[in-house]
């Protein structure tokens, strides 16, 4: 049965009318039109649907919308501030760390999550964090480089 559910996404409050078991991914995409978050597999294996839930990268296809209620959610649409890209977005753009770019939202959100807890990750740390994100075009080396670059930019900015 559809119920009103309160969500806090990118700092804004939304009410969605849907079955509480609906995956958060469907609520974002189909109810709220936030289509930057992608469907890739529906089993939490590819990472295309990654969002930050209370700052932690989570697979939105695996989270019932009711479980996301009242927790801050960040999607790809919420990273750009006042027309300025998030350093991770900027680094992906600068390195052209994408080809078809369908995985890019998930890659960026996973990386933002990593850098929020580990501002100076090793390559092994990045590989570990992105192991659950699939890129079928094979852009992995550039993504790795972009995350290093973003980490550097964020450390410099924090100084």
């Amino acid at each position, binding site marked *: 049965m559809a119920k009103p559910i309160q969500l806090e996404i990118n700092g804004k409050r939304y009410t969605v009318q849907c079955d509480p078991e609906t995956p958060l991914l469907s609520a974002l995409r189909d109810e709220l039109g936030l289509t930057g978050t992608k469907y890739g597999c529906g089993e939490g294996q590819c990472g295309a649907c990654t969002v930050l839930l209370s700052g932690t990268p989570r697979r939105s296809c695996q989270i019932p919308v009711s479980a996301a209620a009242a927790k801050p959610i960040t999607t790809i649409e919420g990273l750009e501030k006042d027309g300025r890209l998030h350093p991770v977005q900027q680094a992906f*753009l600068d390195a052209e760390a994408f080809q078809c770019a369908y995985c890019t939202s998930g890659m960026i959100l996973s990386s933002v999550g990593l850098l929020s807890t580990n501002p100076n990750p090793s390559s092994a740390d990045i590989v570990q964090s992105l192991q659950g994100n699939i890129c079928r075009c094979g*852009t992995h080396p550039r993504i790795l480089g972009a995350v290093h670059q973003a980490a550097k930019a964020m450390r410099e900015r924090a100084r």
Partner: protein
Amino acid sequence: MSGPSIKFEPESERYEFRAGPMHHFDLARRDFFKFLGAGIAVFAVAKDSLAKQETAPTRGFHQEELPKDITAWLHVGEDGGVTAFTGKVEIGQNIRTALAQTVADELRVPFESVTMVTADTALTPFDFGTVGSRSMPTMSPQLRRVSAAARDLLVGAAAKEWNVAAEGLTAADGKVTNPATGRSLRYAELARGKTLAQNLPAEDPVTPANQWKIAGKPIPKKDGRAFVTGKHQYTPDLQRPGMLHGKVLRPPSFGATLTSFDAKAAQAMSGVVVVHDGDFIGAAAANERDASKALEAIHAEWKEVRQTSSKELYSYLKQNAKASGNERSRRIKGSVEDGLSAAAHRLDATYTIAFIAHAPLEPRAALAEWSDGKLTVWTGSQRPFAVRDELANVFHVSENNVRVIVPDTGAAYGGKHTGDAALEAARLARAAGHPVKVVWTREEEFTWAYFRPAGVIEIKSGIAADGMLTAWEFHNYNSGMSGIETPYAAPNQHIEFHATECPLRSGSYRGLAATANFFARESHMDDLARAGQADPLEFRLKNLSEPRLRAVFEAAAKSFGWPRKNIQEGQGFGIAGGLEKGGYVATCAEVAVDGTSGAVRVVRITTAFECGAIVNPDGLRNQVIGANIQGLGGALFEAIEFENGRITNPRFSGYRVPRFRDVPEIEAVLLDRKDLPSAGAGETPIMGVAPAVGNAIFEATGTRLRSLPMVPQGLPAAKT
């Protein structure tokens, strides 16, 4: 003794012509068309088609009859903006950027002022499809010629304006200048108030690569910002007013036919539309969940047919080979028998290649909308015009009443040549009276799409005591003819493709059969080198005269550090290469094999690639490295498993694709041949990966792996 030498016909994408539409429906015909603003428009037509114009017209994008061979056109608007139109599709290969560079370069305008309109059957000229690495060798020159022609028109317009001869005028930076007077006119000013449309024979001379200013540079991807902000809308992201979500009820197994059907419960659900048409059963509802619930409420019974399984795949392919005799699939030169009897070393080996899936991260999807008997479909496809024709056919409407638009798509790799999702969405939309979007699930994608064909390859060969090939006999069952010929100079050859019954729906995959044929040939060449106690690179070069292929072998080896200086336990180097689709590739790989666990790690790869003049080195590097990583999947662990008409691993949790931990250090060595025309680069760089890795595993362990994927569970009998 010696038979005639028969040239193979180039393998076009051989499967999609066989694959008929999945569904058949009934409908009616009508008509439509499109626009063009003021300014200057130029159509590129093939040289001889202007003469044929009156006798061989074709449907146009705005109802004018146009010569049949229009391949590209562009428009210079009153604001000086340039819009170039091509039927090609952007699927991550960066063609939008590369073609815009070509136009900007030849028209002499800033890159930013060029907009590429791609893959919209109402707006862009007919195109066969974004397949076969053909965009750069065919579309790029067409756009270059149309741009040169438009530039000449603009120069002519300026000459007329100033009443001077066109010859002395120059075009640069979006304007025409008269060096004698210093006066100049912007393209915007020259186009203003004009509605000039010209068909020009595409024979104007174009700028040679060594004078390119915008092409040849690492210009960033067009609209890159839209991709990192999530703003770009792929097909699954599109919405239309009143849109419903559609789902299709799939049979329990391949080839199953419907025997009974009861949808009363589903039809009683509010807001649900159920469609039953032949073997097609689908439902549309306000959201995917409701559409899925409706399908669950449908009672359908199917008659299934017994089928083979992946365990018996290779014997099945051999046993079901069709009678040969087609000369186009066979090449015989000299006598293999004589060559073998003259050989000092002979080898005989069989190689097998599993079915694999493209698994593009964006699944097949389509959004269809009917309005006044006209159909518009947005879908991720490599062949929008073929999808249009398929829709027109199935729904019995005129092609002019069907418009197919392809948003930049979340990849395809050869897997999106058919219009399955488009047909499904259009059928549901027609019944629902609303636009309907169908997005395949990953499981549907792994099951109902088509696969890279499996194959069996048998090779018999011989070399003389001096290390020269004497005989080369090569039989490919089912996987295909691409790359089947050997680049090595064997005086006696018998090369043949054998068609067989194929247990799964098969189609194009990045590189087609060349990946399989390269794997077999280059693995075999490695064994021959060892039989003759020669270095694998030296052995290849000794039997190879093609200078462009020699050049990439040498470049890869040099950059990689071939041959190995120190031997470490479990470490191996391998090399492989070849030429295909106008591109030349050589790959070196280093592996490390854990002697206890048998785990194989690819440590590093160097791939040298040459495809003529490079249009965008940064985009090319992305394609080459991407192809190498994708190739690792099919080389090491990707395989579709099936049993009795069902795919048994239709998920990413059961079908392993390369992930970050699988990615070695990869170097792309790009050879820029400005003196040669640009060839495509999307496919050939994938072809050397599997044999180079297999050869490296052999060097590390002494185990020769002749079956792709080579180590789905690690190396079972690691001998280090």
